[in-house]
């Protein structure tokens, strides 16, 4: 507790304030991300959890400056990155300035390693590319560094792999390569967007542990995006739960699990299978579907699926409010409050 208090006083590595993204879709304006705020300290991991379509990936892409220009209708808020003793306002940077940050400052691990690597370039070329671009290494130096990186991410026979093409590797191995590419220029912030969703269950844990080990070793700030609360449970320092483009609950991990306030968080929690459950325990599915983000109706977005829904929830959108030290939630009738009978 004292540790985290001490850290919040330091300048955060990454601070996001009221980030709002609207995209032009085929059917209308998509309110992909609304008023998202959080901060990330050096050496810490923030887990962002939500169903698919909750705006997590769009948010990650916004932080990386990778939103499709033409489809971006609105991009508001403040994203501050503290590097080299100064604070950069990411959303105010030109494309050219932003580009120099991608790789050495910010890096990203993508969801599907089967499609994230260029099929016609060798792995060596793909790993060496950012090294040559940002660190000014020549080809031989970059290749030597690429070799080290492959070894660091636990790829056997890295020497031989350099000249291979993506299709010659398994999914897990490819994701390790994607991680190697992300880490190539020693970034300060690593965004991992569902890094294990596309992988076999047996490989998932290995890749997650690798990510975490590398993050600790390099003292990076990591944003770990997932739809699976179980993935971040033991790995993140803080967890933000996203629903319909908004953060609906934010807390230190242990606190979230011991005292979750938002009904959606609880629903997510119940949908995670646990080893401690007796076999054949029915998994709890969240009824209904995630909301359309085009022209969202007023009121709490979770209202149509919420077990505790009241009249007020359908009229007003609840704001993110403090519920104790570092614990925020956006619910009028949070779990454990008086209005809802326990």
């Amino acid at each position: 507790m004292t540790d985290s208090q001490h850290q919040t006083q330091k300048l955060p590595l990454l601070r996001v304030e009221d980030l709002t993204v609207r995209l032009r879709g085929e059917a209308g304006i998509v309110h992909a991300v609304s008023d998202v705020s959080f901060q990330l300290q050096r050496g810490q991991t923030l887990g962002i959890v939500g169903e698919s379509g909750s705006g997590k990936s769009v948010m990650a892409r916004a932080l990386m400056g990778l939103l499709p220009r033409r489809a971006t209708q609105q991009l508001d808020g403040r994203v501050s990155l503290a590097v080299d003793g100064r604070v950069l306002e990411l959303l105010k940077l030109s494309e050219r300035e932003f580009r120099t940050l991608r790789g050495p400052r910010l890096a990203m691990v993508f969801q599907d390693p089967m499609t994230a690597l260029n099929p016609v370039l060798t792995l060596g070329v793909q790993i060496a590319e950012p090294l040559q671009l940002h660190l000014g290494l020549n080809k031989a130096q970059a290749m030597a560094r690429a070799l080290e990186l492959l070894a660091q991410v636990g790829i056997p026979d890295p020497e031989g792999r350099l000249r291979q093409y993506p299709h010659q590797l398994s999914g897990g191995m490819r994701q390790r390569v994607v991680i190697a590419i992300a880490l190539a220029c020693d970034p300060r912030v690593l965004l991992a967007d569902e890094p294990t969703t596309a992988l076999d269950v047996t490989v998932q844990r290995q890749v997650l542990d690798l990510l975490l080990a590398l993050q600790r070793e390099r003292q990076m700030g990591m944003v770990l995006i997932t739809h699976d609360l179980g993935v971040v449970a033991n790995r993140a320092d803080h967890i933000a739960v996203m629903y319909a483009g908004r953060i609906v609950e934010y807390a230190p991990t242990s606190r979230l699990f011991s005292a979750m306030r938002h009904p959606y968080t609880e629903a997510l929690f119940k949908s995670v299978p646990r080893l401690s459950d007796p076999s054949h325990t029915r998994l709890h599915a969240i009824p209904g579907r995630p909301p359309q983000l085009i022209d969202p109706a007023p009121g709490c977005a979770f209202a149509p699926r919420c077990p505790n829904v009241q009249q007020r929830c359908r009229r007003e959108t609840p704001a993110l409010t403090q519920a104790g030290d570092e614990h925020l939630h956006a619910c009028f009738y949070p779990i454990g409050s008086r209005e809802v009978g326990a």
Partner: protein
Amino acid sequence: MHLVLRKLPWLIGTLLAVSFFTFLLVSLLPGDPAVMILGAGGVSPEAVAALRAELGLDRPLLVRYFDWLGSALTGDFGRSPMTGQSVMDAILSRLPVTIQLGVMAIIIALLLAVPLAMLSAYHAGSRLDRAISGLGFALMSIPSFMMAIFLILILAVSMNLFPATGWVPFSVSPAANLRSAALPALSLAMIELALYMRLLRTDLISTLQQDYITLARAKGVPNWQIMLRHALRPSSFSLMTVVGLQLGGVISGAIIIEEIFALPGVGRLLYQSILQRDLLMVQGIVLFIATAYVVVNFLVDLSYSLLDPRVRHAD
């Protein structure tokens, strides 16, 4: 190499079918070649019969086919009964012109199409993209002979930059040769350009939506480098196929273009042989062209493996 061996039977089968079809096509043409050679009026039936026997036209179709194929395999397409010239020699002497024309046209088309398509795809949906696509649409609606007329009118008649007709062999004067080839090649190139551009633009746009392009951007790779290094190669497979397939279009165009510009190429030879009903010559040229087409497309198929490592390692 495995790839070559696996596809070889297909190649041979297609070539056999093509040769038979060629033979059939020409043999079924109306008009007795013997009568054509001797002239219609005042020739005795005996003389015609004698010539038919001499030309081997009195034997069954299949026998004649295998006979013809057998000598064709040794490079002997026979002699034109009209001019007495060896068909093979006639083709070979005119081939350089047609090859130069076709290659120049394809190169011009590619040199223009690739950057235009990249520009268009990169700015997809913008005004520039629409302008380029519109240009492509217009070019696609102008057949090569019409393009030739326009080019002659502007660049030869009005501005006098290029000769309107005629051909200077490369060996005589390389500069004059290029000048004489410029307008014909441009005429042929424009419609191909439109086709290549459209195709490459579509493929580039779908490539640009791939995750690995986003990954390249996440690495901080500059946009032009993404286009050249990451997007172009994976997008060029169908372009390659179409360049191969379009060879038929280029050859068809060359027949007319060579006629318009009075170029001594294979296309013009074919056209004039058809007008003169010089069947052996027509047979030889058609077989030659079709064989070239099949072989080139076979090679295009094989060269996929150079561009795409996934194909290379398929064995």
